[in-house]
C-alpha cells in the first residue's frame, strides 16, 4: 500500500474495513446509550478513578465521563455534547439517531450501494424534515406572562427522563418558577441568574426553590446574629482588610510608643471605610428595628469584623462574584465599589437573613425579598451522587423551559414527531425523488423510528408491535405517541408530553451531517509516534 511505503509504521484501514469500523463504533455507542432513553431508561453507575460514584441517566454526562477512545465514537460523542451545549437536551437521541442512520446505511452499502448516493438521499430528507417540522410544531404564545401550564409540561417531559417520576414532578414546578422568576420581558433569559446550591442534608424530595439567595458561607464572627429580620442589604466590593502596599515598604521606629502609633495608622484607612458603612447603618436603622447586612466580595479582616459586629451589622466576606450580580437582582439596590458615596438608595432589602449550619459547613439564606429577579434552587440529598444527579437534571430542566420560551413552540413528544416525520418521508418525499437517492430517504425514514422503538424496548414492550400500531394510527391521520406503560398509542397533546422544538431541530440538523461525514470516510490512517502504544 502506498502509505506503507511512505511510513512503514503507519496503520491503515481502507475501503469497506474503514467503513465497517466506523459503523461498528457508531452502533456500539448506540448500544451503550440505548438503555438511557426515556422515562423508563435505566441508570448507569460510573465509578471514577478515585472510587467516586456517579449515577446518571443523562446521555451527556455519560459521554463526558466515559473517556471514550475510539475515534469514530469520539466524533459522535462530540456532536452529542454540542447538542447539549446548544439546547441542553437530546444527547441520547442524537447518538441513537446517528447510530441508526449508520446501521440503516450499512444494509444498503453491503448490497453494493455507494455511500455518496445515500448521503445525497440524507440531504434531501433532512431538508424535507426541516420544512416539515415548521408545519408540525405546536405554537406557544409567550406574551407578558407565558402559559405556565405548557412550560410545566415541557419541563416534566425532560425531567422525567432524568429522574424518577415523583421527584421529577416536584422539580417541574421549581424549575418553571425559577425561570419565570429570572425572566425579564424583552430580554434574553440568563439562566446564570438562577443559583443552584446544594446541601447534603435530608432527602432528595426536600429540594426547594428559594426566592432569594443562598450563599455557601456564613459570617465569620461569633458575635454576629445568626438570624435577622427586615434587613437592609449592602452589596459591595470593597476591601475591608489591610493590604500590603505594592512597594517594598518598611517602618522604622525607635521606641514602643512610636510603634503603637504606626500600628494605629496602619489600620486607620481600613477603619475609616468600616466607619462609613456603620454611619450608613445608623442612618437607615436608627429608630426602627431594621437590621443591616453587608455582603462583601472582598475580604473583611478580624478587626473590621469586630467593629461591624459591635455596630450590630451582620457581615459576610468573600462572596462569589456571580452572587454579587444575583444579589442585586434578588434584593434590589446596587453593588457598590467604593464606600465614599454611600446613600440609602444603594441598599437592597430582604425580609429574612439567616444562617444554617450543617456540620462544618455554613449556609446563609437571604429570603423574603421583594420582587426578585434572581432565585436559588436549593438541592438537597443524602449523598453526593444523588445531588449530582439532581443537579444535572435541574440544569436540563431549566434549559428546556428557556428553550420553550425562546422558541415559542413545542413539538409533540412520546415518539409522535418521529413517527409522523418518518411517514411524511415515505409517503410524500420519497416519491418526488429521482433515482437511487430514494433509498437514502428510505434509510433516513427508518432511522427516525429508532426513538419510538427504543422507548418501547426500554419499557419491555415488543418493538415491532408498537411501530405497527403507531404507523397505523398515523396513516389514519391521528398523531399519536407511545404510552410507556401499556404500549398503546396515546395522544401526546392530551397527556401533556412535549419536547423542545430547538432540540428536535438540532438533532435533525446535526445527525445526518455527522453520519454523512462518517459514511464518506474510506481510509483511516493512524501514524505518528505518540499515537502508537508499545505493543
Amino acid at each position: 500500500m502506498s502509505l506503507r511505503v511512505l511510513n512503514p509504521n503507519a496503520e491503515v484501514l481502507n475501503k469497506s474495513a474503514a467503513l465497517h469500523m466506523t459503523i461498528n463504533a457508531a452502533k456500539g455507542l448506540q448500544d451503550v446509550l440505548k438503555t438511557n432513553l426515556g422515562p423508563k431508561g435505566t441508570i448507569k453507575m460510573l465509578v471514577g478513578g478515585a472510587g467516586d460514584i456517579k449515577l446518571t441517566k443523562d446521555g451527556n454526562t455519560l459521554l463526558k465521563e466515559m473517556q471514550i477512545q475510539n475515534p469514530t465514537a469520539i466524533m459522535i460523542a462530540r456532536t452529542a455534547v454540542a447538542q447539549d451545549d446548544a439546547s441542553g437536551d437530546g444527547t441520547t437521541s442524537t447518538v441513537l439517531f446517528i447510530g441508526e442512520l449508520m446501521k440503516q446505511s450499512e444494509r444498503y452499502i453491503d448490497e453494493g450501494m455507494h455511500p455518496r448516493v445515500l448521503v445525497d438521499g440524507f440531504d434531501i430528507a433532512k431538508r424535507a424534515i426541516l420544512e416539515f417540522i415548521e408545519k408540525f410544531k405546536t405554537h406557544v404564545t409567550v406574551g407578558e406572562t407565558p402559559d405556565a401550564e405548557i412550560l410545566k409540561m415541557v419541563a416534566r417531559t425532560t425531567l422525567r427522563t432524568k429522574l424518577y417520576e415523583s421527584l421529577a414532578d416536584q422539580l417541574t414546578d421549581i424549575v418553571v418558577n425559577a425561570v419565570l422568576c429570572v425572566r425579564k420581558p424583552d430580554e434574553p433569559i440568563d439562566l446564570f441568574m438562577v443559583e443552584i446550591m446544594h446541601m447534603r442534608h435530608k432527602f432528595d424530595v426536600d429540594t426547594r426553590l428559594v426566592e432569594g439567595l443562598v450563599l455557601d458561607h456564613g459570617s465569620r464572627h461569633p458575635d454576629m446574629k445568626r438570624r435577622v429580620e427586615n434587613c437592609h442589604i449592602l452589596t459591595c466590593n470593597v476591601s475591608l482588610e489591610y493590604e500590603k502596599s505594592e512597594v517594598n515598604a518598611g517602618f522604622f521606629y525607635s521606641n514602643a510608643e512610636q510603634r503603637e502609633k504606626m500600628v494605629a495608622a496602619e489600620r486607620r484607612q481600613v477603619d475609616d471605610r468600616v466607619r462609613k458603612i456603620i454611619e450608613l447603618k445608623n442612618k437607615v436603622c436608627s429608630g426602627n428595628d431594621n437590621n443591616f447586612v453587608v455582603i462583601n466580595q472582598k475580604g473583611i479582616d478580624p478587626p473590621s469584623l469586630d467593629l461591624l459586629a459591635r455596630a450590630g451589622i451582620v457581615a459576610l466576606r468573600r462572596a462569589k462574584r456571580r452572587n454579587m450580580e444575583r444579589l442585586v437582582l434578588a434584593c434590589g439596590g446596587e453593588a457598590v465599589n467604593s464606600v465614599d458615596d454611600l446613600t440609602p438608595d444603594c441598599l437592597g432589602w430582604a425580609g429574612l437573613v439567616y444562617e444554617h449550619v450543617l456540620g462544618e459547613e455554613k449556609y446563609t439564606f437571604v429570603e423574603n425579598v421583594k420582587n426578585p429577579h434572581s432565585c436559588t434552587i436549593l438541592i438537597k440529598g443524602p449523598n453526593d451522587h444523588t445531588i449530582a444527579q439532581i443537579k444535572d437534571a435541574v440544569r436540563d430542566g431549566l434549559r428546556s423551559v428557556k428553550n420553550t420560551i425562546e422558541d415559542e413552540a413545542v413539538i409533540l413528544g412520546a415518539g409522535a414527531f418521529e413517527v409522523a416525520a418518518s411517514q411524511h418521508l415515505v409517503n410524500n418525499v420519497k416519491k418526488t425523488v429521482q433515482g437511487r437517492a430514494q433509498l437514502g430517504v428510505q434509510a433516513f425514514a427508518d432511522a427516525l423510528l429508532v426513538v419510538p422503538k427504543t422507548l418501547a424496548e426500554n419499557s419491555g414492550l415488543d418493538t415491532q408491535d408498537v411501530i405497527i400500531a403507531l404507523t397505523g394510527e398515523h396513516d389514519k391521520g391521528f398523531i399519536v405517541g407511545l404510552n410507556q406503560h401499556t404500549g398503546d398509542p396515546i395522544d401526546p397533546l392530551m397527556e401533556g408530553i412535549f419536547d423542545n422544538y430547538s432540540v428536535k431541530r438540532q438533532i435533525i440538523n446535526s445527525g445526518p451531517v455527522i453520519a454523512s461525514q462518517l459514511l464518506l470516510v474510506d481510509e483511516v490512517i493512524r501514524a505518528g509516534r505518540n499515537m502508537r502504544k508499545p505493543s
Partner: protein
Amino acid sequence: MGFQMQPYGIQSMLKEGHKHLSGLDEAVLKNIDACKQLSQITRTSLGPNGMNKMVINHLDKLFVTNDAATIVNELEVQHPAAKICVLAGKAQQEEIGDGANLTISFAGELLQNAEELIRMGLHPSEIIRGYSKGITKTIEILDELVEQGSDTMDVRNKNEVVSRMKSAVASKQFGQEDILCPLIADACIQVCPKNPTNFNVDNVRVAKLLGGGLHNCSIIRGMVLKNDAVGSIKKMEKAKIAVFAGGVDTSATETKGTVLIHNAEQLENYAKTEEAKVEELIKAVADSGAKVIVSGGAVGEMALHFCERYKLMVLKISSKFELRRFCRTTGAVALLKLSQPNPDELGYADSVSVQEVGGVRVTIVKNEEGGNSVSTVVLRGSTDSILDDLERAVDDGVNTYKAMCRDSRIVPGAAATEIELARRLKEFSFKETGLDQYAIAKFAESFEMVPKTLAENAGLNAIEIISSLYAEHAAGNTKVGIDLEEGICKDMSTMNIWDLYVTKYFALKYAADAACTVLRVDQIIMAKPAGGPKRDQPAGMDED
C-alpha cells in the same frame, strides 16, 4: 495491537483499564451480593448484645467498637454498590447521629430479599415500585405507632430524657447505660437553650482521661482544657476573665518593622519603653478586674512576667473553636488586641484550676450558674479504645437528645415496632394487586431481620422469638418486644424501652432509598483506579 482487530462493543471504546459491567447477572446481582456482605459485617453488631469488631485501618490504628458508622468508615469500602449503603449509613449518622447500623443492615436485608425476587423472575423496576410503596406505607404505619402523648415532652425532665436515650446508649454500652445515661442527660439538660430546637451538640464536650473506671466518670459544668496554665498561678476562684484572640504580646504592624537605633543609649531606652508599654497594657487588664487572661496565640515572655507580677493567671488555648467555646462558657467577648477590656467584655468563672488527673495536668473551668453554656462529660477508663468507645456512646446519646429536642415522639423499642410494621405491611401487601405485592411482602419480611438479629446476637432462638412476637402482636399487644436479658417477649412500655421516631424514620427511609438506588443501576462503568500506593485489602472484607 493494531486496530484491525478491534472488538465490537463498548469495551473497545473505553480507555484501557476500564471495566464495564451490565445486565442482571453481572451488575445487579453482584451489587446485591456486595451489599449483603457489608450488611453481614455490621449486622452482628446490632443491638445491645452486638459483638464488637476489631478494625485496623490503613494507619494501623486499632478500633474496637460496635458502632456501625465507625466500622464502615474505617473499612474503606471500595465496591461501588456497597459504597451506596455506606453513604446511606453516613447520611444517617450526620442527620441523627445514631441508627447507622439499622440503616446499613436493613438496606442489606432489603437487597437480599430483592435478590430472591429477581430469581423468582421479577424485574428490578417492579421491585423498586414495590419497595417505594412499601416505604411510603411503612412511614404511615410508623406514624400510627407513635406512643400517645409523647409528642410533647419536657426536654429538661431528666427521667423522660433518660428513658428516651437509654436504648441508644444501651446499644453501644450495654449494662452501663444506667451509669452513662443520667450523666449524658444531665450534661445535655444543662446546656439546653431556652428554645430546645437550637440545642447545639457542640456544647456538650467529652474529655477522655486515662485511668480510673466508669464509676469515676462525672460531669463538669464548664470546660476541661487538656493543658496546663502558662504561668505559675494555678488556681483562681470567682475570677473575671479577659480573652484575647490574638495573643498576649507586644503589638506588631502588618508591614515589616525595623527598630532604628542610633546609639547605645537608644538601645537601652528601647527595651525600657517596650517594657513600659507591656506593663501598661497588662496593668490595664488587671485594673479592669480580670484575674485570668486567656490567650488565643503566643504569650510573650515579657507579658507573662508582668502577668505574674499582677497576679494574673494565664491560659493558652490555641484552637480557635476551643477559644470560642471558652467564650461561650464564661460569657467573655474575645478581644483582638491586648488592650483594656470593658467590664461587659469580661467573662466570669466560679473557679479555674489546674488539677492532675491520671497523670495529666488539666485545667478545669467551672461555672455553676453559667446557664446554657458548655458542659463536659469526663470519661474515665483503663484503655484508649475503651475511652473511644465510651465517647461514641456519649456522642450517640447527645445526638439522640438533639433529635428528641426537635421531635420527641417515640415508638416502642426492642423490635416491637419492627414486628408491628412487618405484620401490618404484610396485610397491606395482600390487598395490593399486581406484581409489586411480592416486593411489598418482601419489604415487610425484611423487618424481621431486626428481632432475628437481636435474638441471635443474644444467643436466643430467633425463630421461636419471632413466632411468639407475631402471636402477641396478632393478639393486639402491639408493644411487645424482646427482653434480651430473660429471653422472653415482654411489653416494652413496662420495660420502658423506647426508640425515637425520627431515628427510625430516617434510618428506614435512607435504607429504602439506598436499596432502590442499587436496584436501579443496571450498568457499571468503572474507570481505571487512580494511581497511588497499593493498599492491602482492608481487614474485614474477607469472609468471617
